[in-house]
């Protein structure tokens, strides 16, 4: 069954299909919706199991570990939540208890930041858990199911973290194949606790105090069990492939088999890297290239990776880390790669550079990998390079030099020669053609822009199209400007997740955004793109003028707010915009989509379906008959302009206090 869903929901499906029996949880962005989905299923009777609404992650982890002695258990968390679990996590690994935690990877702060990077997973790499990094929603679902086979294997019996990057992974809606319950049941047998707690015939003592002699032997066994997970992961991944048609290993190698230049990474950025490899591979002036994507981060498949690199006779490896070294030689992945290569290849070790990027939700775009392969080519060429990590997207400290004047002067003294010796190789920077249809929706938080994009995606996926929607989340509250991107793949199906950020269609849900200089909503519109605006006061011609659009662009308007009002939907006009989107974007068949909406439209169903129909019909590139706008009260305007800092209240306060105190 192929459905459109976000990464968190996919992970929740993994737990549901694994028949998880106990699920304590505590909310934290960006993994919360996984737990919400489970709570909803259990509440609706769709999933058997006991959920516990605990009061902290410390308790969530404690409850999971307690339950894992008897039943199959799970939870989900992120960032500080995972760190808050650390104290108890090792009780799971030290007591040989299999369970799974889904982590929506997020920065750890301070400063507080809710967006994606891998620092949380990196921070618990010493807690003894198996760690798998998924690259997309499908992989998250599959990895959760496999995690129980791996963790519960008799030679392993260890807890597993399944990682997926926050937001770009956890909140991106994409097509996911959901296996049938029966198939999963035949792949994953029910849980067998080895030392059950509730065993009157054979009482057990967990976590007894062991002095040095027993302690070191116990830890040695634990270490061996974790190591065993390496080949078990390989076997389980292969068997999964035999059953479900999607096989997995410890790592992927995408590109030339004998690549001289390798970029190594974990997680969701793999999508963008893959796109660049297929774009650059075999081009004139481009060396042999590959992406090494590490899926099993713990236990690290050191020997296998070293062997693969040795076979390819690789010259240069550039490692991308979405996390920090915190004083170490390299950040964690680069450190492991360097150690693995050095330990196994000795003098044959290829050159290795480390790059830090994607921190706190910083983009990792396809073009970044063009820079990284260029760097690798220079390094392979024997040019000087840095032995400490490079940084992505720091203007005054670029990886490759474009403008000497922009560079930090102190850094110039140190790295000037390195920069000068690192040429920009044009062949690597050939722009990625935009062959897919990209839509961007601008709205205000609370207007349901994301919901309509999600519906659109759902309808597309049901028509067997490859449609991906990536909402951009801030910590915005109602009213702030938000946007979401949707991609519809055209031509060959590569199941891409990489956006080129050049739009064919821009939908603007609120015509006050038209004039917002901070958002410039059509900045990345293709010259022959389309703009669709919810407005009953601006004509298409005026909008063209306001946005400074060229002659090839088309402009459409739909009075969505007015239509919603007429249908007594209050301020919920997003379904009208959904219909309007179908009118201007013919790639998703409207008739077929309507059948999908008839099944899924939100309540009040009839009104919303009518809203979609009217949006479709009433979208126009003509001027609308003028409407009278309510006048704004001058006093209200003045009030809204007032800002507290404008008056020196502090002084006024002191004065009045003096009066009061006499």
């Amino acid at each position, binding site marked *: 069954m192929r459905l459109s869903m976000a990464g968190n929901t996919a992970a929740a499906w993994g737990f549901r299909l694994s028949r998880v029996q106990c699920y304590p949880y505590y909310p934290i962005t960006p993994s919360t919706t996984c737990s919400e989905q489970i709570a909803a299923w259990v*509440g609706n009777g769709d999933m058997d199991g006991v959920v516990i609404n605990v009061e902290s992650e410390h308790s969530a982890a404690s409850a999971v570990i307690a339950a894992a002695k008897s039943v199959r258990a799970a939870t989900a968390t992120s960032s500080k939540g995972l760190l808050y679990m650390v104290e108890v996590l090792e009780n799971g690994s030290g007591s040989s208890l299999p369970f799974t935690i889904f982590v929506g990877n997020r920065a750890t702060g301070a400063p507080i930041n809710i967006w994606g990077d891998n620092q949380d997973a990196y921070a618990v790499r010493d807690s003894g858990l198996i760690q798998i990094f998924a690259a997309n929603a499908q992989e998250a679902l599959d990895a959760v199911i496999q995690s129980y086979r791996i963790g519960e294997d008799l030679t392993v019996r260890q807890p597993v973290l399944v990682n997926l990057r926050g937001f770009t992974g956890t909140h991106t809606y994409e097509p996911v194949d959901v296996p049938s319950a029966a198939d999963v049941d035949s792949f994953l047998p029910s849980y067998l606790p080895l030392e059950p707690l509730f065993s009157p015939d054979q009482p057990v003592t967990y976590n007894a105090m062991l002095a040095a002699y027993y302690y070191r032997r116990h830890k040695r066994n634990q270490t061996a069990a974790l190591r065993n997970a390496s080949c078990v992961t390989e076997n389980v991944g292969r068997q999964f492939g035999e059953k479900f048609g999607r096989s997995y290993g410890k790592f992927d190698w995408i590109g030339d088999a004998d690549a001289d230049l390798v970029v190594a990474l974990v997680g969701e950025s793999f999508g963008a890297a893959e796109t660049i490899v297929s774009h650059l591979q075999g081009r004139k002036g481009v060396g042999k290239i590959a992406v090494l994507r590490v899926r099993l981060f713990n236990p690290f498949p050191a020997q296998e990776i070293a062997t693969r690199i040795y076979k390819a006779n690789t010259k240069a490896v550039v490692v991308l880390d979405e996390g920090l070294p915190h004083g170490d030689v390299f950040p964690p992945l680069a450190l492991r790669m360097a150690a693995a290569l050095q330990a196994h290849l000795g003098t044959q070790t290829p050159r290795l550079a480390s790059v830090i990027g994607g921190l706190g939700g910083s983009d990792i775009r396809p073009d970044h990998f063009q820079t990284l392969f260029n760097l690798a080519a220079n390094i392979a060429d024997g040019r000087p390079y840095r032995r400490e990590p490079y940084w992505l997207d720091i203007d005054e400290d670029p990886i490759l030099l474009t403008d000497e004047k922009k560079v930090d002067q102190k850094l110039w003294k140190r790295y000037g020669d390195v920069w000068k010796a690192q040429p920009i190789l044009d062949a690597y920077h050939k722009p990625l053609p935009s062959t897919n249809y990209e839509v961007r929706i601008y709205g205000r938080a*609370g207007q349901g822009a994301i919901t309509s994009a999600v519906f659109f995606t759902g309808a597309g996926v049901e028509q067997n199209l490859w449609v991906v929607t990536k909402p951009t989340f801030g910590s*915005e*509250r109602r*009213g702030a400007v938000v946007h979401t991107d949707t991609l519809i793949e055209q031509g060959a199906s590569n199941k891409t997740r990489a956006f080129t950020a050049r739009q064919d269609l821009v939908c603007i849900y609120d015509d006050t955004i038209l004039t917002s200089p901070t958002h410039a909503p059509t900045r990345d519109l293709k010259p022959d793109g389309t703009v669709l605006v919810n407005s009953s006061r601006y004509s298409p011609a005026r909008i063209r003028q306001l946005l400074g659009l060229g002659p090839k662009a088309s402009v459409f308007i739909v009075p969505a707010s007015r239509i919603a009002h007429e249908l007594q939907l209050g301020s919920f006009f997003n379904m009208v915009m959904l219909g309007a989107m179908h009118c201007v974007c013919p790639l998703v068949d409207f008739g077929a989509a309507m059948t999908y909406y008839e099944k899924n439209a939100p309540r009040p169903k009839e009104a919303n379906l009518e809203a979609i129909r009217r949006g479709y019909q009433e979208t126009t590139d003509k001027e609308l008959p003028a409407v009278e706008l309510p006048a704004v009260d001058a006093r209200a305007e003045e009030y809204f302009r007032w*800002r*507290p*800092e404008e008056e020196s*209240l502090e002084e006024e306060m002191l004065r009045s206090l003096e009066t009061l105190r006499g």
Partner: protein
Amino acid sequence: MFQVLFNSEIGTSPHSSLLSEPVIDPGEYGYIPTSGLTSGHQGCTGCGMVSATNQVLRALKLTGRYVAASIGTGCNEVITTQNTSCWGKVSVDHNNFPNTASTLSGNRAAYEALVQAGLLPPGSVVNVGIAGDGGSYDIGLQALLAWIARAEDGVYVCLNNEAYMNTGIQSSGATPFGAKTSTTPYGKKANGNPRTPQHLPDLALAAGAPYVAVASPVHHRDLAIKVQKAAMIPGPCLVECYSVCPPGWNTETDYFFEITRLALETRLLILYEAELHRKEGYAIYTLNYLPDRFRPIEEYLETQGRFKNLLRNPEMVKVVQRYVDRRWAFWADLLEHNGVGEKVIVRLDSVPDAVGLPV
């Protein structure tokens, strides 16, 4: 543990039996021009806690001391500090989600060390902790009760919007019975939030806080006086602010005032304060607001989408009414002792008998 000493006052007074001087009475409309938050916060329209924080800061400034705020992760922190600070001339220490009260401890200790070293004058700073209900009733409760147990000086303000709003409306220990949140759904096997909320001021008083109060940002004078008392009374004092949240409660944005009024008139929200005379072993309770007539709880529930499903189930509504009545029974006794009880307490016909549902 301790006895309740009945208080004959109803209404807010700037006097406290724990203070030699009254605090500043800002007058009926709370109008004293002090500055609270500066502009640029990203809170939703109609957010109760923005107004509450604003007034708390203004009230604290009335004490004439420098305000150092320790704030817990949550809406309040996120909407006032993103890439900037809306705290004007207040120093802000956002530490984490579970540790607002421990952060207060560290700051107070550092302050005392600086006083000992002669670098700061004594009594020149007020240390205030501000956190949400999730940060106070749940993950931060351990730190909060331990801070009270250590009897350290400071003010703790809980902005209670009755759920984890910052992460998208999940239920907390303060979420009302039967409310729909994203972790307490309605379904074949679930009827919204299955538990009745705890009450933080009770817990704090039992733990030994010298002063606890419940306030609402709609009642400016009441709030300002309570916050000042909490700042002036030595020891760990707690003020809980009832904070309306339009998206979390599923209401229109301009209902702030009406919802608060109905909360008071149904007695779901009780504005009161309690002072603990620990050595003597008694507490003095003061009711600050007594509604003219009591309304049935439905009238409050009907204002909010989160109770839509609850309202379809009369048995569950009765549970809420019973919860309200049980809490009010304490005040009914107190009023009766003060000789006002019989006059004002109109027993509602709708008050049900116990019906074997969990409370």
